[in-house]
């Protein structure tokens, strides 16, 4: 079966919906929208089965030669290997579930068809991104997802602020994109090709570790990754992006698009491995981001903003893993995170819709019995996010990262401590969120209880985010390495510092304890003694507002970049250059007036003119 069909189906779906969507009966729309993604999910499963059973290392399909000018010959061609297989699995599968969820969630929106059209388009571009066999095509997907995220954040376009958030998301990520573009230019200049496999091949031949070009290139690529994955310093767009409908946040801003950066680095790991300094930077960015975002998440009121910041911080973990070149660990966490974060967002969406679009957690509460399904699934997701020991997938994926951040040959104690701190905060804000939403007394009446087509995805995701963890178990117990073995042909396994090998259990213990203590703290502050949290808040009001505003990055950029640009362009609205030409005209008219005085109509002047002319000529002659 052809690989092309996987991205083609959603494209077709979105095309149909764009062209005839407005005329389709309402039932048909989700059928087309979700159906197309469902089919491509099915296709993915079949293909994945074939792929594994035939134990292929890679699968290439060329649709057509895109362009071909001396050397630069990117094709519309797809390349399937273990890494991209994992990604397309997550994309199509989680995507499908979210489509199903949306079928009910969005049903009352007049832009129903438009929504599915965008969503399908997004799935298509995301698949293109991960399947592309050359960087130009990947860039195409890269921009495509950016576009869809723009469209979907601003989906409710009559709201001015949604439009603003959408534009912000697009522009900020674009800043990253052009850095990536520079990377591409430089790659092309060095290797005269942009095909990923060829680049990998040539890099190994031409470069030595620490080569300058490699350093620059991977730094630039990192720029792109940072932009898309909302890492420091380009993370500011993601919290605002929550303006979009919840399924969008689940699919784009949690499960798939924001992890494109992780994919990019993993995909280009060959290049990065030649630039250890950059890998170090990746790690630092990851660590810093995960702590920063964690603290920000601690203080949010808006349910979805908490999730947004937690997403940022979880991706921080992935970056950290990449930074210590624990490639498969990063991808593993990506997958698990996709499951539970999608789950959390969908659940949050259900809650918010149930309380007719109330986002403030402090106005929620006591939903435990009102929305049992949502509650239980949310609990599972929260557990996974907080890395609740042993029973949750999140535990296994995050624990791996914690361990490797210390034990990997590039790892160090600081990374580890940061990660650990992050873990603590994570579990605190996770359960703060849980308690505030579902426990305590009911502040807002429940208007409407989600139906089956919203519940089923929640349940499936809950299951996945639990069992998903068991395919990769640490050495200390089980030692199951299905996932990493599967990725091994693409992503080299991490080498652990020998002297630390025996301490893994200790680390896990610490991690587990930290997670649990986090839960405890949350319980203490928000169930046992709620007033305490308020005192804390008031005692450190500045810090609180500082964190609430996401460490003031927005303000900073606004002052530093946005306002100057707007100011400059506005003062020059009339185009200063034009004044120059106006000046010329004025001069001409002035001269004209001066000369017209000589045409006074009085004969004497004219005679005088002749005489003066004669005299001047005489003077010339005499000289």
């Amino acid at each position: 079966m052809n690989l092309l069909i996987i991205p083609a189906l959603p494209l077709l779906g979105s095309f149909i919906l764009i062209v005839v969507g407005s005329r389709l009966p309402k039932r048909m729309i989700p059928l087309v929208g979700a159906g197309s993604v469902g089919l491509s999910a099915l296709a993915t499963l079949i293909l994945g089965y074939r792929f594994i059973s035939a134990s292929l290392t890679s699968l290439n399909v060329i649709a057509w030669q895109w362009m071909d000018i001396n050397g630069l010959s990117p094709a519309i061609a797809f390349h399937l290997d273990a890494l991209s297989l994992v990604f397309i699995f997550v994309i199509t599968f989680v995507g499908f579930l979210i489509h199903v969820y949306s079928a009910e969630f969005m049903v009352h929106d007049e832009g129903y068809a438009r929504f599915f059209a965008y969503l399908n388009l997004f799935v298509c571009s995301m698949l293109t991104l991960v399947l592309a066999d050359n960087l130009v095509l990947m860039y195409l997907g890269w921009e495509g997802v950016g576009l869809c995220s723009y469209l979907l954040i601003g989906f409710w376009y009559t709201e001015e602020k949604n439009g603003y958030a959408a534009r912000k998301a697009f522009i900020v990520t674009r800043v990253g994109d052009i850095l990536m573009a520079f990377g591409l230019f430089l790659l092309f200049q060095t290797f005269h090709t942009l095909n990923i496999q060829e680049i990998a091949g040539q890099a190994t031949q031409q470069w030595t570790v620490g080569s300058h070009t490699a350093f620059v290139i991977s730094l630039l690529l990192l720029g792109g990754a940072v932009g898309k994955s909302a890492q420091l310093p380009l993370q500011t767009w993601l919290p605002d992006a929550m303006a979009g409908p919840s399924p969008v946040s689940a699919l784009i801003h949690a499960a798939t698009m924001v992890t494109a950066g992780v994919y990019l680095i993993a995909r280009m790991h060959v290049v990065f491995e030649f630039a250890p300094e950059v890998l170090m930077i990746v790690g630092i960015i990851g660590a810093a981001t995960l702590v920063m975002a964690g603290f920000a998440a601690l203080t949010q009121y808006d349910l979805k903003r908490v999730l947004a910041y937690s997403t940022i911080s979880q991706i921080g973990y992935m970056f950290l893993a990449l930074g210590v070149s624990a490639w498969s660990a990063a991808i593993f966490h990506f997958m698990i995170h996709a499951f539970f974060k999608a789950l959390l967002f969908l659940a949050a969406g259900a809650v918010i819709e149930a309380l007719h679009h109330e986002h403030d957690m402090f106005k929620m509460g006591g939903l435990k019995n009102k929305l049992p399904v949502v509650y239980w699934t949310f609990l599972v997701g929260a557990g996974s996010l907080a890395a609740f020991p042993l029973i949750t997938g999140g535990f296994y994926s995050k624990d791996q990262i914690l361990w490797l951040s210390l034990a990997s040959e590039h790892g160090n104690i600081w990374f580890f401590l940061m990660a650990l701190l992050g873990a603590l905060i994570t579990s605190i804000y996770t359960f703060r969120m849980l308690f505030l939403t579902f426990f305590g007394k009911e502040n807002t009446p429940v208007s409407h209880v989600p139906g089956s087509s919203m519940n089923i995805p929640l349940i499936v995701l809950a299951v996945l985010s639990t069992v998903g963890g068991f395919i990769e178990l640490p050495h200390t117990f089980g030692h199951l390495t299905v996932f990493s073995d599967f990725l091994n042909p693409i992503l080299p396994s991490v080498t652990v510092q020998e002297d630390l090998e025996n301490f893994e259990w200790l680390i896990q213990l610490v991690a587990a304890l930290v997670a649990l203590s986090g839960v405890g703290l949350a319980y203490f502050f928000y169930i046992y003694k709620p007033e305490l949290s308020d005192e804390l808040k008031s005692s450190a009001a500045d810090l609180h507002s500082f964190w609430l505003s996401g460490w003031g990055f927005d303000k900073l950029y606004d002052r530093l970049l946005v306002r100057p640009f707007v100011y400059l362009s506005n003062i020059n609205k009339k185009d200063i250059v034009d004044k120059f030409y106006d000046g010329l005209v004025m001069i001409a008219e002035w001269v004209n007036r001066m000369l017209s005085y000589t045409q006074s109509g009085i004969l004497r002047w004219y005679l005088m003119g002749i005489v003066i002319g004669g005299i001047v000529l005489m003077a010339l002659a005499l000289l």
Partner: protein
Amino acid sequence: MILVTFISVLMIGGIMAWVAASWSNLASRWISLITLLIDFILAISIWMNNASTPWIEKFYAPWIPNFGINFSLALDGLSLLMLLLTFFLGILGVLISWNEIQYRVGFFHFNLLWVLAGISGVFLTMDLFLFYFFWEVMLIPMYFLIGIWGHENKRYAAFKFFIFTQASGLLMLLAILGLYFVHKNNSGVGTFDYFQLLGTQMSLSTSRWLMFGFLAAFIVKLPVVPFHTWLPDAHSQAPTAGSLILAGLLLKTGAYGLIRFVLPLFPEASAEFAPWAMLLGVVGILYGASLSFAQTDLKRLIAYTSVSHMGFVILGVFAFNSLAMQGAVMQMITHGITSGALFAIAGILYERIHTRDINAMGGFWVKAPFMGVTTLIFVLASLGLPVLGNFIAEFLTLIGSWQANQTLTILATTGIVAATAYSLRIMQKVFLGKTLNEKTMTDLSLREKLVFVPLIAAIIWLGLFPQKVLNTTKPMIDKSFKTEQTTLNQKDNGIQ
């Protein structure tokens, strides 16, 4: 012979359209439409079966022998593409003004077709005198288009346009004559024939001066900051078809001139000037972007985006390598389509709500989703989104100019971020946000869809299958870079 047909058909059609109007406006509309269709089909047929020879077709007839002036036309890949664009946009121009123009319809179509005739002449001629001839000829009807059917401030705009282009054109004439005499003194033969003048030997300083003469005309047309100020006025005041042709075609004649004349005739001088030219391009990109971000008049806004986009062209042309050159050519075509479409949208919006002020617009998506989607597509094109043609153009240009000069390329690329800002601003102000002024708002009519569907198809086709176009220009570009390749290599080594 077919080359002559291209031009003469348009001229005759124009006269017929004028005459026909005396009994029926509809007749003259149809006549001009059919005329353009004929030319378009002719051009397509040539394109379909052209060998990859540099020169597909030539025509030659003596005109003023005493000065060695000949009526010589020739067609290569570049000219062919430009012709295709000309006729394509011409057709759309006729369609878009179908209802808009009710005053002196016949004379309008006469001017429309004669502008196009002049432009085709510019793209075809291989005699410098004749080139100047057409260069001037295309201005007069354009002047009338702006001056008679324009908006409130048409007089001023028309004058400005005319005088700017004339002034620069005369400088080019001086340069042409200078070249003529240089060649005459070298070889004893006085001729304006492009092919004979190609290898003219001259001192660097001479060629520098002559090149500036040519440049003057071309960078004013292109336009390059700071010679751009005629453009916003002309574009915003012209009737829709006028803006469409201005932005889509007239600007391209400048770029065409650079590629066809400046580089081949003065290789050393232009190589020496290249960094400055690229700098000008970058300045244009950023300056145009910042200005268009500030505008509130929709057409003016789009006009400044043209300034910004044409910056890429000069950047690519003077990057001196075939990648960038291909990019520049591509940019000429895609920008022609994109800006044309955007102006068309501005025009139909004006037809509906009688204002160009974007603060008076908003939330039109509710009423006009089709128009919204169309606009969205072209807005995205203008911010260089992949899948759409402009991406190919800008990507090639930048990846090429990167080989030549990295700092400038970086600056140019930041222009793309700015492009994102102003393009999305259009979308936000006009189609999203609170719903305003929607009483008279209606979605695209069938005729208008007939205009936009081909445009959309074209821009997407260019984005996904650019190879056909690239192949068309390949022979000509490879030929022109036999000499420059060496300088390029030197630049390359300089970088590593």
